[in-house]
């Protein structure tokens, strides 16, 4: 379970998060929606100590992660997998080596054959095969995103964090990635937090949705509850989603 308690984050004079409080029960998919620059990614990075909140508490399975040192954060990060806005693949390594990277660290007991088997298994989870020997720059951006997902799930995280996983992708790949998030979350029984602009996807696969505006939560609830929410920003997001639905 992940719990945010009155979390504030300030960059200089600018307050990006203004007293965020919410909870994500185990095994649920939570979507965090909002326009650009409202602190969605900052919120996600605070969970794993990649950023520190100015005040407030963030509990991951009961452990307050806000005041932990890099060493103390290690077990928390071990539980979590994060898919970044960029694919964040290591350019100098092949796709195989990228997926195997975390495995070598966390499963040193794996033999070469076991490692290769696990890498193949993870790549097949994201519908990729035959790309193991290629470098990241030799495959498309959408494929890189999927490899990033494979690298993340390879080490069996219990919590999956997605930072705008479909930004910059075409509609077909976007759909495929969204289906993958749902499939992986259900298949691997993970708790998932997805930062996104995509209301349609949130309505399709989220258990809970939070809408952020100017660093504050302006709406929260299940997809059904969100559909009835009168907040102007939620209506704007819904309108876009409904327009897309009508068009398709």
């Amino acid at each position, binding site marked *: 379970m992940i719990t945010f308690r009155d979390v504030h984050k300030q960059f200089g004079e600018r307050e990006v998060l203004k007293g965020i409080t919410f909870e994500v029960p185990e095994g649920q998919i939570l979507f965090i929606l909002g326009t650009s620059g409202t602190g969605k990614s900052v919120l996600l*990075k605070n969970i*794993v100590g*990649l950023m520190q909140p100015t005040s407030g508490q963030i509990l991951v399975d009961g452990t307050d992660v806000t005041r932990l040192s*890099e060493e103390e954060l*290690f077990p928390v*990060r*071990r539980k*979590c*997998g*994060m898919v*970044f*806005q*960029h694919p*964040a*693949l*290591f*350019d100098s390594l092949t796709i195989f080596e990228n997926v195997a*990277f*975390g495995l070598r*660290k*966390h499963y040193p007991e794996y033999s070469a054959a076991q490692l290769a088997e696990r890498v193949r298994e993870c790549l097949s989870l994201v519908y990729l095969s035959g790309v193991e020997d290629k470098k990241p720059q030799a495959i498309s951006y959408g494929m890189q995103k999927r490899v990033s997902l494979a*690298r*993340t799930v390879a*080490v069996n995280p219990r919590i999956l964090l997605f930072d705008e996983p479909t930004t910059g992708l075409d509609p077909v790949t976007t759909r495929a990635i969204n289906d993958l998030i749902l499939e992986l979350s259900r298949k691997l029984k993970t708790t998932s937090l997805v930062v996104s602009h995509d209301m349609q996807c949130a309505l399709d696969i989220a258990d809970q949705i939070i809408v952020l505006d100017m660093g504050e939560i302006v709406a929260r609830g299940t997809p059904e509850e969100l559909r009835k929410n009168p907040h102007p920003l939620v209506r704007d997001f819904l309108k876009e989603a409904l327009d897309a639905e009508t068009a398709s």
Partner: protein
Amino acid sequence: MKDIFVQLEFVTWQSLPVILFCVCFAAVVTIIESSFHMKLVVQNDALVPGFAALLILRELGAVVSALLLTSRVGAGLAAEVGSMKITEQIEALKMLGIDPVRFLVVPRFVACVIGGFLLSLIANLVCLYCAMLVSEAKLSYSSGAFITSMRAFVTFQDLVFACLKGACFGAVIPLVSCYFGFRCKSGAEGVGLATTNSVVVSSVLIIVLDFVLTFLFSHFY
């Protein structure tokens, strides 16, 4: 360990041609200029090999090599780490349980220290050899006369200190480059700025460190 060897090959072997090319020219200029000015001032250039060798070993070989290493290795390193920072690869390393400093900085630091030492040694020897060839061709010194004159001014200790300087300069480059790389702001402009800053700061620090080391070593002469 494998990473250290990969970096050592990049720092030392791949930098060697450009460093040797440049120090050879530096040697030519040093010996010809020394001769010209000595003839002008004391009407005699008998001490040129000795002075030139002293200048090469105490300053030129190590400093020129380090400055070239800064522009080749330091700039590349700052750009590499900076790009990793803005494309979230550093954060991905942290999420995979890897300490980015241990993974990125340590192998490069070790490689640059060893590389700086080796490059300074090779550059100084090649520079001296080149100076000897030029003085033989242009100043009518035989190799034997050059070496005799050189030995009157320089000792083995000078070569050791030159190599130690090279190692210290080598340590500066990855530390400064990684510092700016890790603090790189997003965008191409951010990477450019990190690269520029790393080269400028490394070069300045190398020159200041050269003064400090020369002052320290002067107590041993």
